[in-house]
């Protein structure tokens, strides 16, 4: 499978009054054509900064892109002008945000909001754009007759469908979904995820699904990347990751969720909390919470090592297992 989006060594910091926030610290990620890649991490790990970075929406100030490349079909988006980025956003790469309540305009009806996205990128008359908007509503399972209604007349799940309709209206290559179902109830979440999966296939898009829910990842994604302290600590296809989670942080995450098919008396949480992003540990970012940490972890920074086909991990414990293709 070809790579459609490649993020290389991306560094984004926020310069705030309280010091420099090290949001992304040399992040590498590749999204392949037609796949769904899950990006898993907790609050403050840098998930949303990455999504904003790809979209060219990092607020500056305080955000600063310090280095790296974001290659979309070979073009570095970081070198694009604002005008060029406007052709990419919405048309090539679209994004849906976590909270459908705040991403819609409350004083405009939903049909017009979808049509607005369409007219931004396609030479259509206002009337034709509205017709297409109604088609998009049908695509996401909302009767076209509701196009003249306003966001407050829709439930949370329905609003998220409208947001998806806006994102897909121009048939983008890549959809970035930032916690698209976190605000929704579980039965509605199931409906929305199923719909996203169908539409992803129908429009042959690639999807970057940002989430903290490992259940959603297991059921929706082809590959997974785990992010901690602004860098990827483990990446693999979904089957190998759930079968053999290598990084102590990934292990901790999976152990701390209660599982429906197992009974445990006590959960095993990860001790401590996320490191302060203005003062990240020097060596491995996870060393302050890791039960295996040694002196070396505190002083030197581990690199990503591929330990099995397509399965890479950033941890000194797997140094011996590194795969050498040429051996």
């Amino acid at each position: 499978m070809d790579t459609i989006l490649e993020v290389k060594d991306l560094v984004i910091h926020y310069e705030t009054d309280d010091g420099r926030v090290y949001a992304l610290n040399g992040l590498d990620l590749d999204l392949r054509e037609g796949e769904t890649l899950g990006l898993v991490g907790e609050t403050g790990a840098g998930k949303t900064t990455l999504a904003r970075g790809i979209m060219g929406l990092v607020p500056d100030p305080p955000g600063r892109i310090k280095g790296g490349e974001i290659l979309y079909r070979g073009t570095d988006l970081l070198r694009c002008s604002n005008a060029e980025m406007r052709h990419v956003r919405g048309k090539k790469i679209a994004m849906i945000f976590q909270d459908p309540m705040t991403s819609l305009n409350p004083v405009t009806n939903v049909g017009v909001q979808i049509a607005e996205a369409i007219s931004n990128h396609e030479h259509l008359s206002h009337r034709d754009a509205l017709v297409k908007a109604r088609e998009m509503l049908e695509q996401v399972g909302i009767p076209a007759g509701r196009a003249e209604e306003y966001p407050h007349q829709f439930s949370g799940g329905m609003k998220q469908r409208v947001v998806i309709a806006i994102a897909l209206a121009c048939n983008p290559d890549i959809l970035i979904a930032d916690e698209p179902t976190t605000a929704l109830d579980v039965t509605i979440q199931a409906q929305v995820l199923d719909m996203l999966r169908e539409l992803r296939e129908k429009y042959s898009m690639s999807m970057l699904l940002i989430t903290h829910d490992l259940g959603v990842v297991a059921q929706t994604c082809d590959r997974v990347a785990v992010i901690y302290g602004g860098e990827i600590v483990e990446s693999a296809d979904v089957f190998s990751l759930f079968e053999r989670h290598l990084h102590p942080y990934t292990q901790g995450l999976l152990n701390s969720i209660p599982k429906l098919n197992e009974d445990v008396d006590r959960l095993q949480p990860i001790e401590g909390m996320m490191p302060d992003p203005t003062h990240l540990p020097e060596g491995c970012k996870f060393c302050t919470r890791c039960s295996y940490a040694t002196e070396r972890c505190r002083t030197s920074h581990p690199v990503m090592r591929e330990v099995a086909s397509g399965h890479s991990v950033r941890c000194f414990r797997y140094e011996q297992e590194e795969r050498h293709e040429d051996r």
Partner: protein
Amino acid sequence: MRIDKPLLQVKNLKKYFQTPGGMLHAVDDVSFDLLPGSTLGVVGESGCGKSTMGRAILRLQEPTSGTVLFDGTDVTACSKRELKALREQMQIIFQDPFASIDPRMTVSQTIMEPLIIQHKMDRRDKKGLERKALEIMELVGLAPRLVNSYPHELDGGRRQRIGIGRALVLRPRFIVCDEPVSALDVSIQAQILNLMQDVQKQMGLTYLFITHDLSVVKHFSDEILVMYLGQMVEKCESKRLFAQPMHPYTQALLSAIPVPDPRVRMQKIPLKGELSSPIEPPVGCRFAKRCPYATSACTQKAVLPREIEPGHFVACVRAGEL
């Protein structure tokens, strides 16, 4: 078999709200018993009335009708003074650790406030208050150096520990936990759940644990009550509910949980549409419109919970045959 007297008995509890569109039935005729030292999980989707029920039990919102017996005392018939005394034994932990604690009070002030309100300690006894605060902070896993910190200096997990400390300081017997871990990250969530289990054992607490997270509720509860549009649709022992859900809504709800294992492909029971309006709901089963098994009998008269097997209550006319 242990024969315990229930600590809490809820009988035909109703809470209606007057709205411009008619009467909103937030909690509609819910009854259950809760044994001392146990945990009852309450699950359901947003808007099903689970939080309103928790608040109505504590009379943070006045119930429209029904009775709540706490250790034999009728909470709903108490005077204000009696209720204040009773609150010493009944506390609540709120969902949002950012909104539920006063930003202008320090950690120790927040934790100590209930003691002052209940006249257990004197506001002027600074030394005594601080000593007590440190004791509670140790219990809930807050470092002593945070005693004079303000909430904005702390992350969500620590703030929720303050909320728990505040609920525990009066040594209550019963706590309503309204989505206490929903706002927290998974690794922190596990820490807080373990803490709540530990203090439950230590202090013999009884919990009403309200949540929308079904994996959490299974882990945490002895019994589970499933709510749909203000009504109880199913209630039974936690493991049995997951092994053998009998109400079609429970079945659909459980089938929609994403399993954190890619080898397990979910057999989802698709539900048509979304939650209908709780304003002037129709007679009969409120789930009938979305139910794949609905018949004409479902919508003719009110469907009350029946005890299908010992301890397993289901509000469905077709329960047992499905």
